[in-house]
């Protein structure tokens, strides 16, 4: 499952992620990391069965962990199958099938919001 790990300002200098990985032995597949001197936010993939343990380890060090459960939603009435969303999605959620209809693989979405701004027809939203 995809999770969001937020690291508050006062903990930004601690190696929270590495410590949690070493402590639990659970591998996180980090897909997006936005970290600056004031705030950190990471999106990672973790096996469902391991989620509770890594969450506990991260939270004991002050991080906030949330499950990303608002997959991208496409309004099929609004969508005109142009494909503008395809090239901006970092996770290749969108593809064309052989009839040039848009296919959406929601499971891959990390909810970055890039495609929402790109869609000329306002057909994309997060969560439903």
């Amino acid at each position, binding site marked *: 499952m995809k999770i969001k790990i937020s690291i508050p300002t006062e903990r930004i200098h601690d190696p929270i992620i590495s410590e949690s990985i070493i402590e639990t032995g659970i591998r996180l597949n980090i897909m997006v990391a936005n970290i600056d001197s004031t705030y950190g936010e990471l999106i990672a993939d973790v096996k469902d069965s391991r989620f509770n343990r890594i969450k506990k380890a991260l939270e004991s060090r002050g991080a906030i962990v949330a499950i990303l459960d608002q997959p991208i939603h496409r309004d099929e009435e609004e969508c*005109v*199958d*142009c494909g503008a969303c*395809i*090239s901006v999605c970092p996770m290749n959620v969108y593809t*064309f099938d052989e009839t040039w*209809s848009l296919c959406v693989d929601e499971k891959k979405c990390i909810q970055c919001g890039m495609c929402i701004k790109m869609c000329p*027809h*306002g057909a994309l939203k997060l969560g439903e």
Partner: protein
Amino acid sequence: MVKKSIHEINKKIEDGSVNVVTAEEMVGIVENLGVEGAAREVDVVTTGTFGAMCSSGLMLNLGHSEPPIKIQKLWFNNVEAYSGLAAVDAYLGAAQISDTRGMQYGGAHVIEDLLRGKEIDVHATSYGTDCYPRKVLDTTITLDDLNEAILLNPRNAYQKYAAATNSSKRILNTYMGELLPNFGNVTYSGSGVLSPLSNDPSYETIGTGTRIFMGGAQGYVIGNGTQHSPSDGFGTLMLKGNLKEMSSDYIRAASFTGYGTTLYMGIGIPIPILNEKLAASTAVQDADIFTDILDYAVGSKDKPAIRQVNYAELKSGLVQIEGKDVPTSSLSSFKNARKIANELKEWVRHGKFFVSMPVERICCEGSAKSMKQTQAVPLVKDVMSDFIVTIKKDQTVQDAAKKIWENSFNHLAVISDTGELVGILTAWDISKAVAENIFDSVESVMTKKVLTCAPNEPVDLAARRLDRYGVSAMPVIDAQKQVLGIITSDNISKLLARRY
């Protein structure tokens, strides 16, 4: 030699014996039967395109009110229309944005809402005359209430369109969509193999008076489009059709983030196969249609071409730029273009649509001109200060403070031993360093990501960059990164003071 007339083809449409195929199907037919065989077999080839066509709008007539008004200014759902013609006629442009909702809603959305039967708020003002005494009018209308609702589109159905990419370090929001930094993506438009004008590039059957599929109804070509540039392969068409007969499947409003609104139009043009030449031209494939990938990072009308590309590559989903695979996005819908070509094919096959010859040919030579500008645009080099104080990156913070103090100059350009610009240092950076007790080299306290500009850039572009990043000055550098001068918001204010 195969020679058919429009009259013969229309008779076949009437008696149901017509052989009509789409431009996509024609590729294989010409491959199998050869040009002559295909010209004999096939009577009509249908094309289709469905994409953003900003140059679209609605010519309408509201009917007279009681007491009557000669409308001077007019808004539909707060989107302004042009009404400087007669009393209650107006032209609503697809790209006009709402006074209250901005880029989210524009003329295109009013057109789609009308088509969907929604009620539209009308607000009009006037100066009042003896025959038209009324000064203000507010009402709501639907499409049925209008006398005429004619889509009158000055420039549609581009023969092909340049593709877009972005070499800069930031996201660009354009009418070609969101362009990711460092050649992160390529966007393109047009239906390639199905593109109407690419299937009849010498405009033998497409001209003034040609009957077409427009937004799900029958419409007409009324001439070449504005900015018609056939010699470069960028021909365009001016179109007209009755909105009241159209379908919201083929007329769709859109909004590009950071750019504005536009109308997605569905257009299909039948090409009667009168001779071998037309059979050959309708066999055009994606791989035969070339266009350039332009760099939209350059905010000038002449954008540099990164490379040439054909529609087969664009449609494959990846194009190579500098050895890297870059994902592509279409902005127009090939699925809908195909749907249109097929629907038009059915109309012809079932005797619901007859082909026509143009009453006048449109020119297939010539290029669109650039704007005549009588006032020269000032360039950065015309207004920059060529006095700029530089400092080497390994000098001390104290040296820097001294230079600023001696020259009463707020920005120091930090350079390497070979004179290349590597950073910028302001009086503020120095105060901060002092406050934090850092007295090492200039390099440790300077700003490394420094915005720069080139001497030949128009000042407007430099001003826009200063404003966007909230900085007050930018070093001007040449291609070797040598510092030539500096442009400050002060230089720009002085320029404006001179201008007005």
